[in-house]
């Protein structure tokens, strides 16, 4: 299921011009407020008719201005999760879930309710639920409508940090278990790095970059501020704990240690390493406090300014960017193809999950 968008739309002095493709997996539409993300959401859902362009889902045209085609929202099979839950207040949770489900309800409901942890809420009314529970019901309602594609417009933005932390794992399960392509709109990089497989960067009504998440984040491209550049690595918890540190394995088996409290107990998850927290050594350093020393190969050097360089390293089965001074790069005489060591403080990884 590939969603193909190419639209232009103007309103109130704002001009949106966006073209991108959302493949299978989670495509994150990332950008600041007012960059046109929600307009794209509305256009895909069919709630807004763009001035020009086309929207296609796996070859089927949902909208085409040249052909004068605009499929009504109800016929688009887009599961929509809005910023606010938008549950129907006069209906019970079960009736809300059933609203778009049709005959599919009794077959799919137990699995989806179980996955979202809402099975015990069915007889209640939306007004009696917490914000996080409401949003989970809204996600369940969208899933039960048998969508071909799931659209989520900042589904966590109306929630506080605790509720957000409560829902994120459900979204990860959704990505891994439901196998449904998702377009996820967000202005939170933390959410995006946890969920997305593809990243589309937006600013001022334009797409300023798009590609696989790991590439986009480790690259010195436009859009993301340099402070946010970093590595996103797949890691697996081994269950081993020593001195309050939890052992994780990178995809090539390299061990990495994290403070116990900041990592999940088991299973696979994503680890984010900011580029500014990575050091480079030519030899295995001695007498160093940093615990995580990964063998690495230099891929490229990109000058950021007169003083700074971004070095892309191949390590741990992925790409780890390191942001260091030009003076250090010159002193170490770094060049593509060189074998080096990437050094990451365990403490600096704590916030990266």
């Amino acid at each position, binding site marked *: 299921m590939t969603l193909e968008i190419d639209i232009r739309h103007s309103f109130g002095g704002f001009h949106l011009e966006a073209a991108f493709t959302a493949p299978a997996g989670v495509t994150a539409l990332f950008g600041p407020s007012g960059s046109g993300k929600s307009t794209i959401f509305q256009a895909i859902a069919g709630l807004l008719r763009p001035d020009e362009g086309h929207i296609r889902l796996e070859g089927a045209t949902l909208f085409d201005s040249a052909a004068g085609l605009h499929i009504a929202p*109800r016929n688009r099979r887009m599961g*929509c999760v809005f910023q606010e839950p938008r549950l129907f207040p006069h209906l019970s949770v079960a009736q809300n879930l059933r609203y*778009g489900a049709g005959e599919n309800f009794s077959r799919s409901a137990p699995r989806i309710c179980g996955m979202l942890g809402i099975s015990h809420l069915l007889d209640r*009314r939306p007004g*009696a639920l917490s914000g996080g529970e409401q949003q989970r019901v809204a996600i369940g309602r969208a899933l039960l*409508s048998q969508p071909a594609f799931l659209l989520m417009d900042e589904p966590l933005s109306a929630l506080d940090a605790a509720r957000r932390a409560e829902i994120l794992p459900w979204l990860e399960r959704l990505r891994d278990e439901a196998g449904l392509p998702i377009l996820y709109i967000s202005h939170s990089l933390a959410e995006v790095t946890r969920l997305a497989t593809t990243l589309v960067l937006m600013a001022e009504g334009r797409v300023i970059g798009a590609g696989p998440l790991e590439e986009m984040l480790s690259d010195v491209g436009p859009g993301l501020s340099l402070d946010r550049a970093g590595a996103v690595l797949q890691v697996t918890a081994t269950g081993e704990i020593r001195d309050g540190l939890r052992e994780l394995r990178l995809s090539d088996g390299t061990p990495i240690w994290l403070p116990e409290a900041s990592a999940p107990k088991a299973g696979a998850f994503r680890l984010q390493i900011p580029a500014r927290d990575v050091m480079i050594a030519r030899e295995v350093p001695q007498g160093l406090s940093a615990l995580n020393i990964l063998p690495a190969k230099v891929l490229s050097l990109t000058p950021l300014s007169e003083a700074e360089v971004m070095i892309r390293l191949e390590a741990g089965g992925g790409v780890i960017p390191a942001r260091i001074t030009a003076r250090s790069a010159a002193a170490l005489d770094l060049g593509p193809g060189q074998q080096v060591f990437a050094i990451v403080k365990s403490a600096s990884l704590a916030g990266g999950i």
Partner: protein
Amino acid sequence: MSDWLTPDQASAVFLSLKVAFWATLCSLPPGIFVAWILARCEFPGRQILNGLVHLPLILPPVVTGWLLLMAFGRRGWIGAPLYELTGFTFSFQWTGAALAAAVMAFPLLVRAIRLSLEAADPKLEAAAATLGAGPLRIFLTITLPLAAPGVLAGAILAFAKALGEFGATITFVSNIPGQTQTLPSAIYSLLQVPGSDAAATRLVLISIALAMAALLLSEVLARRMQKRISGA
């Protein structure tokens, strides 16, 4: 009852209730429809429709009654062909009183429903559309239930208005005891006859009691509905 109210007076009370009930019930569907058009549709002539609906509220009731007579009387431009075709006529029948009451109550009904329809959240309707619901289903399952308190308030208001309608009714269907004499016209007749003050007072008290009962009932029902909608 018979020593307290004469058969004619009792039938006036009963007739008023019957007229108000049918007037309210039959004007609900068109009332909801017109309110929805006024609340949700943009079209040229919307203000004209709005004015037409509100006309009975500001016209002298006797004028509305005369217009009804012209249109729906036995020789009226709708009434005549209707009588030819079906043998049915509004004139000098309780159905005519119901029609007059419905027309007079219509602005109040539409106003209340329109306000509650405008307050129903279009975002919920959009959500329903993305779940595969068509316009009619959205209206019946989302918009209308959300507007239910307003519909109820409008219906009670229309019922109370229909119960008290006098000018247009007496102009359109006259004041025939047992046939078209409603509670207000019965009170009016009694006031024309010296020495009937006691009987008139009894009917006045009945009027007040009915109006109060309608208001209290609407209050209770509205509270129950509001609770249902806010959903705690």
